[in-house]
């Protein structure tokens, strides 16, 4: 018998394999009688580099081993696949992917637009923490799979007097032209609201404090970029500090850059990424796409996948990767979450364009 097990022999081999987690929620009779025809492959959108490597190792490869369905990764950016998916659904074409790995904010837009399949019948949802449930949406049009923090990442050599403790430390004249933010300001708005003397409860109605602080930061001539830029800029010595998600800082550190990160007193934005399945798939492919998402919620899959990313998952009992125990970018306990700012995805998507326009208006000036 070759290494490739059929599903049936695998089931006979015992439910102790990780396959058990995938299938356990389904009544056995239904499984054997009605399991829809398997497609040759499914396509999962993922971010490139270490992101897709982690997904492949933790979720895709085991899924293939278990079901015999190959997984192909589409590396189109999340916001670039969005119009493709929307156009496909609007034109009643088959979408170009089966599963979308997406930011919760972006996914919420797709959910509101009604292009996502309902995932609330996934069997493994019952084992997840409340983090898996999207805030402000009915049911599970998307499933959150892990959280992440927009930390203040910095080069220790640029801060000889110790780690920065406040976002206001970025206003130090020494750092002029040496700091970086996301080019839409994402991750920075909420801490800026606090740093500018405002209240989080005033979001989204009164954010003048945030814009005041952004204007002060503008005088520091920050660089504005996207995920890969931060890693490149730290590598090439262009910047000393940045508001970026911890994974980018971790990647630069793995490449040998001396980097550290912290959660300043004003707090950091906490957000989630998730998986969802677009509408318009044939019945059988939809079934297997949902099984992929279901499998991604097992403890085994989460442990390997998220070790690769260095991020906290949505099932209890995961072991933090080495070096990230008690790290501020890996929150697990309620105390860890005290300094983290979480705003519902719905409030975010409904106001994001305005925040974005305001941020641009200040920065492009």
């Amino acid at each position, binding site marked *: 018998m070759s290494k490739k097990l059929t599903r049936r022999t695998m089931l006979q081999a015992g439910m102790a394999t990780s396959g058990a987690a995938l299938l356990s929620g389904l009544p056995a009779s239904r499984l054997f009688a009605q399991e829809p025809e398997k497609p040759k492959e499914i396509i999962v959108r993922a971010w490139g580099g270490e992101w897709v490597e982690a997904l492949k190792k933790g979720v895709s490869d085991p899924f293939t081993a278990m079901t015999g369905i190959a997984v192909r990764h589409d590396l189109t*950016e999340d*916001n*670039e696949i*969005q*119009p493709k998916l*929307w156009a496909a659904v609007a034109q009643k074409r088959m979408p170009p992917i089966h599963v979308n790995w997406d930011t919760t904010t972006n996914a919420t*837009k*797709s959910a*509101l*637009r*009604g292009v996502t399949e309902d995932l609330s019948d996934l069997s493994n949802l019952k084992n997840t923490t409340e983090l898996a449930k999207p805030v402000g949406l009915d049911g599970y049009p998307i499933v959150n799979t892990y959280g992440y923090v927009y930390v203040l990442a910095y080069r220790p050599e640029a801060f000889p007097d110790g780690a920065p403790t406040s976002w206001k430390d970025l206003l130090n004249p020494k750092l002029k*032209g040496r700091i970086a933010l996301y*080019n*839409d300001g994402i991750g920075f708005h909420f801490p800026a609201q606090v740093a500018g003397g405002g209240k989080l409860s005033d979001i989204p109605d009164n954010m003048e404090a945030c814009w005041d602080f952004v204007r002060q930061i503008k005088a520091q001539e920050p*660089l*504005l*970029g996207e995920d890969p*830029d931060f890693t*490149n800029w730290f590598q*090439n*010595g*262009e910047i000393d500090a940045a508001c970026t998600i911890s994974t980018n800082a971790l990647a630069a550190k793995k490449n040998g850059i001396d980097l550290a990160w912290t959660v300043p007193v004003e707090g950091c934005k906490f957000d989630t990424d998730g998986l969802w399945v677009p509408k318009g798939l044939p019945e059988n492919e939809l079934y297997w796409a949902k099984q992929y998402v279901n499998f991604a919620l097992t403890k085994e899959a989460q442990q390997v996948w998220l070790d690769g990313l260095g991020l906290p998952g949505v099932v209890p009992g995961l072991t933090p990767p080495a070096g990230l125990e008690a790290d501020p970018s890996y929150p697990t306990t309620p105390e860890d979450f005290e300094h983290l700012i979480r705003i519902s995805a719905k409030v975010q*998507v*409904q106001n*994001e*364009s305005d925040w*974005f*326009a305001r941020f*641009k*208006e200040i*920065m*492009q*000036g």
Partner: protein
Amino acid sequence: MTTDPDNSDFRYPLRWRLMDGAERLLEIVWPRRFGRFTGWLLLLPALLLVGILVLGLWQMAESSLHVLDRNTFLPSEEYTLSNYGTIWQSATYFKVIWRSVQGAVWTVVFTLLLAFPFAYVLVRTPRAWVRKLLLIALFLPFFIGQVVRAYGILIVLGTSGAVNDVFGLIGVGPYRLLFNFPAVVFGLVQYMLPFAVLMLAPALTSIPQETETAASSLGANWLRSMRHVVLPMAKPGIVGASLVVMTLSLTDFAMPAMLGGGSQDFIANAIYDQFFRTADQGLGSALALLLVALGSVLVAVIIGLFGAGTLGMGEKK
């Protein structure tokens, strides 16, 4: 065709007969009296091909008339001009549009400044190997693509890059050479230079060298013979190159995105943001249509002032 009874097995070569057949077929399908429409017939495939873009523009025009409903992320039912109103009232977009126009103009100026001598040397050099080397230097960057080339520029001009290393040797710097407006223009010039040279070279080839020699033997120094003899004769090439360089830099996306450090957006970047970041296709479409209008007006002005140069077309006879 007459058949000679003594030579009945004589046949014209196959090629001739095929050609005759083709000519006769053409006479049936497209008789000579249609002659004055032949130009249009030849142009038709190109018009149709570009027509695909016009269909796309039509779709965009439609969606620019709907605003985005942020509760459903669907376009509104009713038609409205409010996307255009949003652009009109926004200081940011005005700034970005103005920056794009300035960027395009500077890029045209610097590109021509470099491309003209390059094309001139290319055409005039008597040595074949020099010409080949120049052509290779021109063609190789094409094969690398814009994004990787921009990345190369990031490394060369970076704070710890090659240029700053040279500055370090003479004891100055390091300077921040990237992430500002000049860096974007530099990237665009680097990107456009080969196009411009390729457009200028044929125009320069058609200027007989004797004309220049004559001018200088009449006592003109080289600057004056350039200005009064070469430049006017090369005008079609210069105009053609300007049109191409201007329109391509006006709509460029990659260079401002990679070399501008996020604060030097051109219109294409603003359009990208609307389409891909805030999912507002209506506003993105409105911006795109404005950019097309702006570009077309600029093209019309240049053609009106100087003719269409080597792009065009139809000026002779």
